[in-house]
C-alpha cells in the first residue's frame, strides 16, 4: 500500500536541486528532511525542491518541510519550490508555507531567479 517517496539530488555549487517522486507524507517528509540536512551539513545554503513528480502531499509531510525551511533559515539559507500542481500550491498557501519559501512555476525560471550555478 505504501508509495515510497524517491528523492534525487543534483548538486550545483553551494546549492542543490532535490527532485521528489511520490507521496509526501510523514515518511516522505522525513526522507526529504534527511537529504536536506545532509546537504546543509555539506555547506548547501540554497535548496530548490522540484515537485514535478509529486501529485499528492499531506499536512504532516508539509509540516516537516516547514521544519526544514526553519532549519535552513537558522543557517541563513533559503529553500524554494517549483513545479507544484495547482492543488499542492493551494495546500502550501493554506498552511502558510508560501510565506517562508519562494514558489516558481518551473525549474528554468527558478534556476534563473535564484541564480543557481551549474553542477559542481
Amino acid at each position, binding site marked *: 500500500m505504501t508509495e515510497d517517496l524517491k528523492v534525487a539530488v543534483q548538486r550545483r555549487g553551494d546549492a542543490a536541486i532535490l527532485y521528489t517522486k511520490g507521496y509526501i507524507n510523514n515518511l516522505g517528509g522525513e526522507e526529504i528532511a534527511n537529504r536536506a540536512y545532509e546537504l546543509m551539513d555539506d555547506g548547501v545554503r540554497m535548496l530548490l525542491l522540484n515537485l514535478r513528480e509529486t*501529485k*499528492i502531499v499531506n499536512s*504532516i509531510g508539509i509540516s516537516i518541510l516547514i521544519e526544514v525551511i526553519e532549519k535552513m533559515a537558522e543557517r541563513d539559507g533559503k529553500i524554494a519550490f517549483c513545479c507544484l500542481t495547482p*492543488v499542492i500550491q493551494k495546500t502550501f498557501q493554506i*498552511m*502558510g508555507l508560501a510565506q517562508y519559501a519562494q514558489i516558481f512555476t518551473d525549474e528554468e525560471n527558478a534556476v534563473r531567479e535564484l541564480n543557481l550555478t551549474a553542477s559542481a
Partner: protein
Amino acid sequence: MTEAVERQMELTLPMIEDIEIAVVKTASDLARELGMSGDQIDEIAHAVVEACINAREHACCDDQRIYLRFAGTSSDEGKPKLEIWVTDHGRGFDPETAKAHRQHRSPGSPRKRGWGLQIMEAHMDRVDIESGPSGTTIHMVKYGERRER
C-alpha cells in the same frame, strides 16, 4: 434524454499507515467517472487524505477501522456531485473548539500541525462534522462543472 450516473460505495478499512492512498484511488476513480476535472479530483484526493489522517491520528478507537461511504451523481442537466463520509468510532472531538484554536492563531506564526480541517474546507464545497463520544463522521461534498450539452 437524460442519462444519469449514480454510484454508491461503502468501504471499511484498517487504520494502518498510508491507508489513505487506497481511499484516494477509490474517490478519484469515482470522481473521474462522474466527469470531474483533474484539479477537482486532486482537491478531493487531498481532502480525503486529511480526513483519513484525522481519523487515524485522533480517533484512538478500539476497532481500528475507518468506515467510508461514497455517493456520486451526474446527469446532463446538473453538476456532478460527489459526497464522501469518513467515519471512525473513536472518542470524538469538539469541532467548535478546533475552529476556535485556529482562529486564535496569529497571522504568520508557524503552526506546523492541526491544518487538516482547513485543508478539507479549502478543497471541498462543503464539510460537515458530527462528533461525539462514540465517534466522528466527516461529510464532504464536491460539485463538478456543469457538462456542456
